[in-house]
């Protein structure tokens, strides 16, 4: 079962407009959420994160919103730039018995920003 879901496999927006990527999760034990950006043939690059005690975190053009009651988070990119075109993964963590915090990923959303 997919504990982290990104229901939109792809999204296309115009340069300068807002990109909104959505993510839903089912495991209420998740307490930390992250967004990663991935280009082909490269590893995921950390973008932004949010703790479950917050509902918003902003870093430059990137803002992540968390709605715990709905088990939903979203990543807003504004303004979108062609260089933002990549696959975006939503990920969540919960401390495990072993003490580590493995990431559980969604299947990713491919964002295309058109000039």
């Amino acid at each position: 079962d997919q504990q982290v879901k990104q229901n939109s496999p792809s999204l296309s927006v115009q340069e300068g407009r807002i990109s909104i990527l959505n993510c839903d999760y089912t495991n209420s034990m998740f307490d930390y959420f992250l967004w990663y950006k991935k280009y082909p043939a490269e590893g995921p690059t950390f973008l932004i994160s949010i703790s479950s005690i917050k509902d918003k975190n902003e870093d430059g053009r990137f803002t992540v919103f968390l709605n715990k009651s709905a088990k939903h988070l979203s990543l807003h990119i504004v303004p979108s730039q062609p260089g933002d075109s990549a696959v975006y993964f939503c990920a969540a963590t919960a401390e495990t018995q072993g003490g580590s915090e493995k990431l559980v990923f969604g299947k990713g959303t491919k964002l295309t920003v058109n000039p």
Partner: protein
Amino acid sequence: AAGVIQSPRHLIKEKRETATLKCYPIPRHDTVYWYQQGPGQDPQFLISFYEKMQSDKGSIPDRFSAQQFSDYHSELNMSSLELGDSALYFCASSLNYNEQFFGPGTRLTVL
């Protein structure tokens, strides 16, 4: 800034062969994670190490083993390779359970 280093970047093996993937975490990071990403799939957690001790285990086949050495680098050993093991293998490191930083990955192809 230093990043996670993985070697080799590409590896081609025959079925039933063995493979060893190496990961060098960011200096001073104390936790290493291994993930497997199959074609068109999301990365799946395999195993992690904290301060050279195995801290968690995910969907890692018994044919695979891993360890973290005194210099904090980690190796993923894969034996009796199968066609289905063809995937991207990512290593990530973190400090104090903060954000995980990923290496560029090793693309393993099993023929």
